């Protein structure tokens, strides 16, 4: 049991650190596609957070949340790509 608790705490800490790093990229940009890539990684980091939380609380139902989040993240990426390709506004010029 202590091994698992240690691992859960360690992965929460590592994921939080990764979230801070990718948030810096989200702030810096410099173009809209860079921010879309950062948002996509934030979504998969959140799937990781949900998985860790499911193990930490011993609640398997959280996996359904992860399913929905993975789905919407993909749809958001497709939507942003379509917006850019049809000539949307890019915020670096």
């Amino acid at each position, binding site marked *: *049991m202590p*091994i*698992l608790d*240690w*691992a*859960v705490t*360690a*992965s929460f800490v*590592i*994921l939080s*650190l*990764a*979230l801070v*790093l*990718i948030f*810096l*990229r989200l702030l810096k940009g410099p*173009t*809209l*596609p*860079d921010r*879309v*890539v*950062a948002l*996509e*990684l934030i979504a*998969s*980091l959140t*799937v*990781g957070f949900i*998985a*860790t939380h*499911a*193990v930490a609380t011993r609640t*398997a139902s959280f*996996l*359904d949340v*992860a*399913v929905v989040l*993975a*789905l919407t993240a*993909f749809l958001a*990426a*497709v939507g*942003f*790509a*379509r917006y*850019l*390709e049809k000539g949307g506004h*890019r915020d670096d010029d």
Partner: protein
Amino acid sequence: MMIEILTGFLLVLGSLLMLLAALGALRMPDLLTRMHATTKAGALGGGMMVLAVAVFFDDGAVTARALAIVVFIILTAPVAAHLIGRAAYFVGIPLWEGTLKDELKNRYDPETHTLASPDDATPEDGDKGGKPDERRRD
């Protein structure tokens, strides 16, 4: 005991891969190299962490859902990366100054976004891509 060790191992390894992806996205010089870091390491890390949940609960319904998420991540990560990379290329994002070769330069029709050979290509190069009237002209 064995299950807990395996779960912890998968969780920590998956989150380390995610950290690697975030570090790559922060440090890499241009969009395409950043996507190279985030897409592969991010998808592998996410898949491993969901797999850790499947190992931990050791239950058919949970394993089925976890495997569905893993398959979904593996299917959609390349598609999303391709779409964003393609859109960003059309928008004209700057490439890293150390880029050696841009094979697609002048090969896309800026209006229709279809791929074709440039008009100044050598004849055997130019005749490869489809019928002549489908080729780009300007």
